[in-house]
């Protein structure tokens, strides 16, 4: 009986953590620009693979599988062995770690919930990603009201957002696909922000999307969305 327990224990322990296929090399590419549209050099970007759970016994794991600094043209390029059992991949822009900005004077972007389906020929090209100085940011508060038509799943913001958590695969149906709340957002004044919100009908459980544009001036804004 002891041997059985030992094998079960070893089996559970062995199965913990992320697995990779070294014969497949995935890559992230893109370009970071500043508030004026010029290339921004020296920005720290990280690609992350993670599997849910609390390590070590329930299989949770988290790897910064590659990182890069943008070159003089603002370009970054990261290649890494392909993770095989991850729940999600992420691209962190201007984070020193998972939570804190590398350059606090500028905004950060976290592309989360990146799934395998988003890779085309083993690559995702994020194209242009804009950062801006966060010094004079104003607050946008979103109030999302469920009603009998359906309930909110989450939302993505496009614009100059100080700490932008962007769900890369909003329609990915998985129990681990949790949106960041994104209800209180610091952002640059004098801009138009696009809010894309995702909701489910109570009966069908299918995810739908809709978009609105919100004008931001120099004052805090509270915006209410009701389905």
């Amino acid at each position, binding site marked *: 009986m002891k041997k059985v327990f030992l094998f079960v224990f070893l089996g559970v322990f062995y199965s913990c*953590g992320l*697995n*990779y*296929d*070294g*014969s*497949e*090399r*995935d*890559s992230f590419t893109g370009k970071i620009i500043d508030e004026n549209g010029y290339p921004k050099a020296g920005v720290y970007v990280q690609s992350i693979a993670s599997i849910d759970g609390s390590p070590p016994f329930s299989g949770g794991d988290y*790897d*910064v*599988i*590659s*990182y*890069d600094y943008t070159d003089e043209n603002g370009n*970054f*390029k*990261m*290649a*890494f*062995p*392909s993770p095989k059992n991850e729940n999600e991949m992420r691209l962190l822009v201007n984070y020193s770690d998972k939570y804190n900005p590398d350059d606090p004077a500028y905004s950060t972007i976290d592309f989360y919930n990146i799934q395998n389906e988003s890779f085309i*020929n*083993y*690559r995702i090209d994020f194209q242009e990603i804009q950062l801006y100085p966060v010094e004079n940011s104003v607050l946008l508060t979103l109030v999302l009201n469920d009603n009998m038509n359906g309930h909110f799943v989450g939302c993505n913001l496009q614009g100059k957002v100080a700490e932008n958590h962007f769900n890369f695969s909003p329609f990915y149906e998985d129990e681990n696909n949790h949106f960041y709340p994104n209800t209180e957002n610091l952002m640059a004044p004098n801009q138009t922000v696009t809010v894309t919100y995702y909701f489910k009908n109570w009966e069908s459980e299918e995810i739908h999307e809709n978009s609105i544009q919100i004008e931001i001036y120099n004052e805090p804004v509270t915006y209410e969305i009701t389905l």
Partner: protein
Amino acid sequence: MKLHFKIFVFALLAVTSLNAQKKNVFQPRPELKIHVGYMVNTGNNMLGKAHEPGVNLGFWTSPFSVYNFKIGFGFNYAQFKISDASLAGNIGHSDLFDFYGFVAYPVKISEKFEIESKAGIGGNKLRQKTGNNKFGNMKGTSYLAGVNLEYEVAWPFEVFAGADYVYSRFNVKSHPDYGSFFKNADQLNFFAGIKFNMSQKKKDASEESGNAQD
């Protein structure tokens, strides 16, 4: 890699069987070489651009020769620290295992010195690790060519030093923009080691001719 190895083994067996009956064509010539080396990664590829040079250990052995061509096999292990995480991943190091068959041709240049050229083909595996965490393998085919100089210290021991060029072709899938960046590897290995002759020493030519006159 399997096809190359089968062709190599088939050619080896064919040459051996065709010539085994002929006098002095097939000669048992067991020897073992153990070496340490310094391997430099070159070229526009993942090993060349994202890894530091590394120390390697290995051996090669040839049990016999055919028409004075030594035939045998060898193993090499090398470890390289990763120097660019954006190209190779945020990983501690890469281990390269290489198992190959070879043909070598020795030329005696003096009583104590011998120079030997070598060509081989084999299979290899590049394994990436940080501590005990593994990040997958890349497998491929390696081709090597090299030369080494040997000096007989005292029979059956010799010391040797030389250099090999190793070209590897890995089976890797990646975005077309990377071209053959992950598929190719070019390496130069500078090595030195000890050779152990396991056969009886040949008699000198003068002794042999003297014996013939008797």
